């Protein structure tokens, strides 16, 4: 294995650690970046197919080119995996003033992400040592299995936990917004933005939306805390209480259910903000606000 190729792998991975991540972008930009990175990976995979179909190349030439193409694809996949890992760690670290049990979970999750680093190191070393297409294929297979068994389930739970905490912040923001608008209810009535008596009714709709959002997110929070407590602190023993509970439960306590509740909570906030925007529009019409 030549030194140049080894250094290329190391430098590329170091760059990912240094540059951190791309997730403080707008959804459109983040999706665009994902599309581009995946596009690069799939571009390299397409290259593998083309090499295999090439009739002019000798078997030896095919093997050399195919090995490089597979290594390139693996390197890109490793880079994006490490980037995601760092992003999740940054996101977890950004939460302060959590209740004691959630702080404990947060710390355990950060530790579990740090444990991934040893796997990245192994993949990086093996990648640098690859000399044949068979070795590259084997590493891809092992990488896939590690992601399926370790990385993806961990990521799924961490993202569910993060989404619940973020949604909690969103609900608080919406509550603050409503309180400030409610303080102005007399002024809203004076300005005759609504017919007499309608102001209270409309603001009640907004308050109900926020309350529903909070109820749904509370359910999601309870679920993810239960899942992570089981996963992180009660692993020992034959009985996985949560798994047994889930067998007969009408509503399963899973990361998917958590995401569903968070999504429903978000929808309630969207409805509430639409009400705020309607009030804003009417205020603009009635009293000439710009």
């Amino acid at each position, binding site marked *: 294995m030549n030194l140049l190729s080894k250094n290329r792998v190391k430098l590329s991975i170091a760059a990912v650690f240094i540059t951190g991540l791309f997730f403080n972008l707008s959804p459109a930009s*983040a999706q665009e970046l994902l599309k581009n990175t995946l596009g690069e990976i799939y571009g390299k995979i397409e290259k593998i197919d083309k090499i295999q179909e090439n009739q002019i190349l000798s078997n030896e030439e095919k093997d050399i080119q195919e090995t490089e193409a597979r290594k390139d*694809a693996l390197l890109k996949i490793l880079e994006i995996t490490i980037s*995601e890992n760092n992003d999740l760690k940054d996101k977890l670290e950004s939460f302060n003033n959590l209740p004691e049990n959630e702080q404990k979970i947060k710390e355990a999750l950060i530790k579990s992400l740090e444990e991934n680093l040893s796997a990245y190191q192994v993949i990086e070393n093996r990648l640098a040592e690859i000399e044949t297409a068979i070795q590259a294929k084997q590493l*891809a297979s092992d990488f896939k299995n590690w992601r399926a068994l370790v990385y993806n389930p961990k*990521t799924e739970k961490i993202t569910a936990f993060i989404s619940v905490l973020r*949604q909690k912040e969103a609900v608080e923001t919406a509550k603050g917004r409503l309180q400030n608008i409610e303080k102005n209810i007399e002024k809203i009535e004076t300005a005759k933005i609504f017919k007499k008596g309608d102001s209270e009714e409309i603001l009640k709709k907004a308050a109900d939306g926020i309350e529903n959002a909070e109820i749904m997110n509370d359910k999601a929070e309870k679920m993810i805390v239960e899942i992570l407590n089981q996963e992180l602190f009660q692993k020992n023993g034959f009985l996985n209480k949560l798994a047994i509970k889930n067998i007969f439960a009408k509503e399963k306590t899973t990361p998917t259910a958590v995401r569903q509740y968070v999504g429903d909570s978000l929808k309630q906030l969207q409805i509430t903000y639409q009400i705020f925007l309607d009030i804003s529009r009417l205020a603009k019409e009635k009293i000439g606000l710009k």
Partner: protein
Amino acid sequence: MEKILKKFKKIEPKEEFKRRSLAIILNAPQNEYQPKPLEYLGAFFTFQKTMGMTAVAALLIISGLSFLNSRLIGPSLVSNLNPQDLNKEMESFNIQFSQIKYYEDSAKRIEVALIKTSGESTTKEQNEEINKILNEMAL
């Protein structure tokens, strides 16, 4: 000269002129006429003028109150109901959620990429996923 002056001393108006002049003087007003203030206003404010001025005053009061209203209500409502702020806040909530969606998409797509890189056979669904991504790349 002295004779002439003595002669003037004896001159007197005619009896008829005296009577007429006395009557005119006695009938003339003793001071100039000064109307009372209320009479003055009464003369100035005719019905038409009063109605016109009332209308103007009402207009000024209404527009003044409306201006005052919007000045007093405006700033606090603006800060809490600013559509840009509201949209920005909503957008930030959506971003959080879309990032979670990103991880779902990414897990699936990278799995397919690793299957292809490992040379393992792909399922029909996975092939569709690959084609979808390649099509997106071509766009």
